[in-house]
């Protein structure tokens, strides 16, 4: 029974991954791209916590999720700082203005 519940959460978490990846692959605004990353992040924390629930070790999973959220804040701060600097350098948030490097 508890395993079935896990599958339901994983189903929706996969939906979040899909949304995030769709955003990353199709959008052009840098901030929008980062919103995609955030959505993937939510999917990941849902996977972590629901795994803990399925394993009956919700406390452990909870502490992992808290740590993960702290990591995420730090990452968001750095990424948004890079985006602001990019905007200052290019006067644009369009990914198509990032063509200096060949990739």
């Amino acid at each position, binding site marked *: 029974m508890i*395993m079935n519940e896990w*599958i*339901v*959460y*994983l*189903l*929706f978490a*996969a*939906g*979040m991954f*899909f*949304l995030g990846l*769709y955003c990353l692959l*199709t*959008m*052009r*605004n840098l*901030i*929008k791209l980062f*919103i*995609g990353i*955030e959505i993937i992040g*939510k999917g990941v*924390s*849902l996977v972590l*916590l*629901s795994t*803990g*629930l*399925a*394993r*009956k*070790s*919700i*406390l*452990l*999973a*909870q*502490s*992992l*999720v*808290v*740590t993960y*959220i*702290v*990591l*995420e*804040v*730090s990452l*968001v*701060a*750095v990424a948004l700082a*890079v*985006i*602001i600097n990019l*905007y200052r*350098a290019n*006067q644009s*948030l*369009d990914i198509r203005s990032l063509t200096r490097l060949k990739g």
Partner: protein
Amino acid sequence: MTFQIILLAAMIAASAFAVLARDLLKAAVALAVSSLILGVIFFRMGAPYAGVFEISVVAGLITVLFMLTIALTKQGDDVRESKTVKIAFPLFFLVFALIDIFIMRGILAKVPALEGAAEAGTFGEVLWKERSFDLIGQLAVILAGVLSVLALFRKRDRHDHE
């Protein structure tokens, strides 16, 4: 469980709106709403602390950071997204959802797992005693974030690179 599924579906809907909304501010708010719902889901899963963190930090602090960035880059707002992306989205999402359900039921339903014993103690004990190493990691990552932001917004005195 039914209520939980409704919440999860609402979270997906809010996130989809965040992806598709043309206005960045609306997108940021939709993202915050999705975080709020996730916080409630966490709470109902028996993880109140993770729920509180999700609501206060992700829905609160990160949304503020997003708003700030959007305000600071106001003129860049009018990036034209391609139209086909929005039109094609429901189709892609439907295909994905079918594959998703198929895979989850077919393969992952057979995930073998060891029987685990129920854990004892409180959240605080687990975080501070069992996962103390993670706290060092948290400190380190906060330090990395602060130093990075300091470095990225420093005054450029003599360096004119471009």
